[in-house]
């Protein structure tokens, strides 16, 4: 895992922000991993970004805390984040992967509506992070594979969000491109 010290710092700050239910800080911390994820293309790094972003969305919903599963979920997240930080400090890649999986598992082990809700939050977090990495210049397919989503999921999200980036992507006069299309069909 690349830039380990930076990730440890992010996770430590994220753990505190999660305890305080500080959504804004969690989102900001999640975005800090995007530049690194775009360059290093390290799946673990990208997963950390997704998890932190998902937690930012979870703490925005006070109703989730009413669920009977909440206490177990909350404790598991804090416990696994601590284990993850320890594994990072020891630079133990096998343990890092195990604890990233356990963070995800603490979600899939839930039941009822909280499970459904948080799984949906995670899925949306993956697509959100993917769209940000795509905005940083990686291709759609490359981004989708890095984040473990499909190009189909990204297409929908990117279409909504990409309006500004579209201007940066202009590479040819549209009339010339139409001519190219007409030539192949009629030429």
């Amino acid at each position, binding site marked *: 895992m690349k830039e380990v010290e930076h990730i440890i710092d992010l996770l430590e700050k994220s753990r505190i922000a999660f305890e305080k239910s500080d959504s804004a800080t969690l989102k900001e911390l999640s975005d800090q991993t995007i530049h690194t994820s775009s360059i290093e293309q390290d799946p673990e790094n990208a997963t950390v970004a997704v998890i932190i972003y998902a937690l930012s969305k979870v703490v925005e919903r006070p109703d989730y805390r009413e669920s009977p599963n909440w206490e177990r979920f909350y404790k598991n997240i804090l416990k696994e984040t601590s284990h993850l930080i320890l594994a990072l400090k020891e630079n133990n890649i096998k343990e890092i992967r195990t604890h990233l999986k356990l963070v995800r598992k603490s979600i899939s082990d839930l039941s009822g509506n909280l499970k459904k809700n948080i799984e949906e939050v995670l899925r949306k977090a993956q697509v959100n992070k993917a769209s940000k990495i795509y905005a940083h210049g990686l291709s759609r397919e490359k981004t989708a594979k890095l984040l473990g989503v499909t190009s189909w999921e990204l297409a*929908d999200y990117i*279409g909504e969000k990409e309006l500004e980036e*579209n201007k940066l992507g202009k590479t040819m006069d549209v009339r010339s491109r139409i001519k190219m299309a007409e030539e192949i069909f009629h030429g």
Partner: protein
Amino acid sequence: MDKKILIFDASPIITLTMTGLLEEFKRLRDSSNVQFIITKEVHSEIVERPSQIKRFELEAIKAKDLISKGYLEFPEKVGVSDRAISELTKDVLNLSNKAFKANGKDIHLIDLGEASCLALSKILRDKGIENVTVIDERTTRMLCEAPEKLGDLLQKKLHSKITWDKKYFDDFDKIKIIRSAELMYLAYKKDLLRLKGKEVLEAVLYAVQFKGCSIPEEEIKEIVRKG
């Protein structure tokens, strides 16, 4: 009659499926002698992967139907083997993923499906077969048409010093690229949308934009003005 070929990346097939424009796509194929080709790498993106996800299973079935009915064909139909494409795809990936560096480190920009389209385009060009590649996603198009602008975009977004080497782009700039937006413009001109009026054209162009076709609003307006 000389062969003419459109090579499809996954992105325009995704756009047209999600906008419900596959019938118009089929009419466009039926109205011309242009063959529509996908590589096996693109097939994986539009059929194999989505068919494993309930949320996109229907779209995968629709894409598969395009193949079974011959609207989309594989490169062997035009005399190009999968092996030849796979070999050149590796070279394309190697070149494209070494072209840009952030703080001295290679940035891997594109993946197999996109690279396979560029590889097939080059193989066809070398055989003297006229071809155009249809790509809705922005990065691969910029890599071919304006790598310096892609470098600027990367620098702006990554807040890192980006360097790029022109020697990697010699072959890419010969690749002709259009998007689903231009295809739907042609469908409109040929009356294949079966709805008339500039507002129809405008609606179709915004529809493809909102499902991932990388086209700025000013270009949509210009196409509508051209009508």
